[in-house]
Each structure stands twice: as C-alpha cells, then as structure tokens.
C-alpha cells in the first residue's frame, strides 16, 4: 500500500471515533488485567489459615472439677478460652446491669448457655493482650471480671467491656453442652 503525500489524513483530530484497534487494545488490556488479578488470588489466599490449622477447630472440655468461683483457661485455635464457674452473686451482677451503662450493650442471657458458666475468648478486644483475672490472686478490675494490664480495659463477670479502650465485649466462641458438665468449643469445618 502506498500513500501519496498529498492525500495525508490529519493525524490528530479533536474528536476521534473509536476504531476497531482501540476496541481490541482496550479489551485485550482489560482481559490481561483480569488474568493478572485472577493469578494473584491463589498467592493471596495461600497466606490464609491452612487446612491443618483449620482442622484444630474443635476441643472438648470437662467442667466437672471446676468449683463455683474458679476458672480454667483452655486453648482453642491457639487462643486462650476463659471458662469461669460463676457464683450466684456474680450471676446476679451480670444479669442486672443497666444496658445504658454498657459501651457494647448485650444482655447476659445472650452471652451464656447455662448461666453458671461464662465462656469467652480470653483476648482483649483492644490489641490482643491476655486479660488477667483467671487465677485467684489476679486483679479482676473494677467490675469483677477481667482486667487487661496492657492498656487498662476492665471487663465484667459476663466478659463485657466496662472501662478502658477496648471497643467490644470479649468474644463468645461457638460452643455447646454435650452433657451438663462437658462442653465442645468450636464448629466442625
């Protein structure tokens, strides 16, 4: 194909109609971008918890030896789980709190299955420290539950945040009673 210099079309126009080539460039670029994004996903997802980590998702715990007022710490999914056998006084305290006083309002009934037992994940919802209050000599904070020494968050006997920088209540893990003194924490994956 030859072009005469006389009949040269102006190379730059103010408004150019999209050509077939523009369309092909655009769709090819978009498809290429999608492909790269799709390839990125396996790499990103490889950093998520692996199958063997997920497989340790369930534990069973015998509660029969825990007297009222005592507590144990179980390890579930590498996290400490606080299980406390509450005394009647503690139960009453937890149940009669004015909801308006709570930064993260939740009734005690919603947080327990059997009101004698409070089961919470023992990780401060602020920045992940382990609150004190499990051992008999530990400080339990101003609300009788748990106290986080890192930044001063205090939780009540239902594991609800009452004071300090933590934004939410201690998390309640999924659990069920197998018998009246045995629980299973976690869900089968």
């Amino acid at each position: 194909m030859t072009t005469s210099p006389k009949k040269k079309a102006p190379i730059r126009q103010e408004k150019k109609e999209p050509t077939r080539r523009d369309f092909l460039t655009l769709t090819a670029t978009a498809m290429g971008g999608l492909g790269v994004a799709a390839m990125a996903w396996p790499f990103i997802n490889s950093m998520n918890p692996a199958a063997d980590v997920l497989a340790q998702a369930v534990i069973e715990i015998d509660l029969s030896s825990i007297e009222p007022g005592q507590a144990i710490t179980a390890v579930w999914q590498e996290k400490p789980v606080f299980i406390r056998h509450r005394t009647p006084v503690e139960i009453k305290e937890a149940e009669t709190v004015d909801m308006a006083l709570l930064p993260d309002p939740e009734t005690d009934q919603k947080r327990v299955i059997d009101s004698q037992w409070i089961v919470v994940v023992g990780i401060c919802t602020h920045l992940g420290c382990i609150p004190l209050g499990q051992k008999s000599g530990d400080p339990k904070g101003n609300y009788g539950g748990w106290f986080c020494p890192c930044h001063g968050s205090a939780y009540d006997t239902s594991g609800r945040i009452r004071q300090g920088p933590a934004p939410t209540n201690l998390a309640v893990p999924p659990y069920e009673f197998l018998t009246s003194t045995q629980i299973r924490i976690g869900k089968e994956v």
Partner: protein
Amino acid sequence: MAKQPIHTRLVKWIDYRLPVFTFLSHALEKYPTPRNLNYLWSFGSLAGIILVLMMATGIFLAMHYDPNAQYAFSSVEHIMRDVNYGWLIRYLHMNGASLFFIVVYIHMLRGLYYGSYKKPRELLWIMGVVIFLIMMATAFMGYVLPWGQMSFWGATVITNLFSAIPIIGESIVSWLWGGFAVGGPTLNRFYALHYLFPFLIVAIVGLHLIALHQHRSNNPIGIEPTKPKDCVPFHPFYTIKDLFCLGVFALVLSAFIFFMPNFFGEAVNYDPANPLVTPAHIVPEWYFLPYYAILRAVPSKLGGVVLMFASVFVLFVVPWLDTCKVKSARYRPLYRIVFWTFLADCIVLGWVGANPPEGYFILIGRLATVYYFAFFVLFMPLLGKFERTLPVPESFDAAKRCRL
C-alpha cells in the same frame, strides 16, 4: 605517543562496551556538590552504608537462624553461644538497627530544618518517606524473629491494629497471621518478608539517588549554586568527609556492641514466646515509641490507629504543607522555634510511649500529639503566610561574606 599502560587500556575497552566507569566517575567522582555542606549532609551516605552492613550481617545470620516457632528462640541462642563470632554478627545486626534509625531520623530532621523537600526536590523527599516506611516494616518483622516474649506480644499488638478496620478487619488479621493468633505461619512469613524488604529498600534508594543527582544536594543556605565555583567535585572532598563520619559512627557502634550490647533491647525478650501470658508492659522498640504514644493518646481504637498511621503519612505531603519560599531555617526565625519544639515534642512522645498510659502521661501524651500534628498541618502552612523571613543571600559568595 607512548602506549597507555595495560590497565588503562582495559578500562577503556570495558567502558566502551559497558560504561560503568563513566557512570561511576559521573556519579561519585566529578559529581558537583555544593561546597558549603555541613556534617549533617553525611548522614545520607552513612545510612546507605548501614543498609549494606545490615544486609551483610543479616545474610550471615540467616545461615544459622531457624524460622520455626519451636526452634527460632533456641536457634538465636545457638547463634549467640555456639556459632563462631555469632554473638558479634547478631549484636552488629541488633545495634545496627537501632543506630540505623538514629541516623535516618537525623537525616530526615536535617531535611526538615533546611527545607530539602522543597521544589524541585519533592519526589526526592517522597522516595525517602517510602524508604522510611519499608524500613519500619522491616525492623518490626525483624524484631519478631527471635521469638521472645516481646517479639510475640509486639507482633500481636501491632497486627491487631488492623482489626480496627471496620468489617474486613478480622479477616485481614487472620490473613496476616495465617492462623487464629500469631504463630508458626506468622513467623515464617515475617522471616521471608524480612529478607525481601531490604532489597526493595535498595531499589527505592536507587530512585532516591536518581532524584538526588537530577537536582543535586540542597545546602545550608538553601539557594541553588549559580557558579561552577560554588561546587566542588564529590571526590575527594565529600568522600573524605563521609569516611570521617563513618569512622565516628564505627566508634559509636563498637561502644554499644562491646560495652552495652543490650542497651536498646528489652530484657523480657530473652524469655521464650508464651501465647498464654502477656508481659506486664508491652513496649515496642525505642524507635517506634513516639508513634506508640500517639496510638494510645486517643481513647478510641480506630481513632488511635488512624492517627498513628497519619503521623507517618503526613510526611508525604510536607512539600505542599510548607508554603514558605525560603528553604533554610537559617533565615526563618519563627520556623526555627517550632522546629526545635517539634524535635523536643518527639522526644516527649517517646518518653510517654515508654511509660504506662496512666495519670499525667495520658495528658502529656495528648498535648504532645496535638503539637506533633500542629507542626505539620498548622504551623507549616501558616508560617509560610505570616513569617517575616530574614534576607536570604543572593549567592554563595555573599553568604560567605556574611559569615566572616
């Protein structure tokens, strides 16, 4: 004409095909540098040399370190006790990291004092901030590797910062961990990234240097050189000056390594990591304390996290926050005051960050946080408008006459 000696001919032969010698001569030898630079200008090259020192010691440590949650702690003890000169290499790496931050902080403060971020050096400054960010990430992950109590809980607190992000925060944190808490997978990936990031820093340092060589160094009077006489060749004038600084630095580093190798560290990090017991006071490494103080100054989790990140990211917009045409603080009497107050403020923040958030520390921390941000978003723009600057000398010669 006598024949040239063999090595000259060899250099010419190579340079004709691969012009490395031309490049080096251009960048390190003839490179015209303002003749009036003071010792503060040596901290850039010093930072570069420390980067090399950190990478060299790090590679040798990697030959003996085991990034496995079960063996990491004991492999570090193995390096300290059994590996030939392992203690020396590890103490060089540990104390090198702390001194790296001191040197980089001085380098950055020098930039702030002399207005080195101003036109046309905005991108030079921004590349520097990027280096600083990657450096912080690298240092944080490196501190996790010995897998002591402070490693573990520092990692827990810092990664939990991301859980403050609404809705997706929790998933991001578990993705960072590769589990439901900081654990083996976390240690492994931190090791991989701790090894990778210094190479990214080298790449950005390359860009930093390209930007530097484009418009060359700023200088204490903050005006561009006008005559060839205003500059001297980099070699030997500044190679000698920088080498002298390197000597002083080596003395300081040796003093730490041989007389107080754990001065910058926390004793509790010689306790192996225990996921069920939190140490009484979790403190980050000293170079992060001011940011930690800002994090804790806000009585809201998300607010604290946002403010902490803002305290670093505000550096990116400094070239546009400072509207004053005069670069050097030498001719800005008011800016000089707010600058030195800012430096004192950073030290106060560091001191607050090292203490538990109780009593007066809360109030002091909040006031210091307010000043930190006021320096950038209030004083920088306002002083540009209202400050009466002193007369800036018209030339290097005029500046010299003033000082005589």
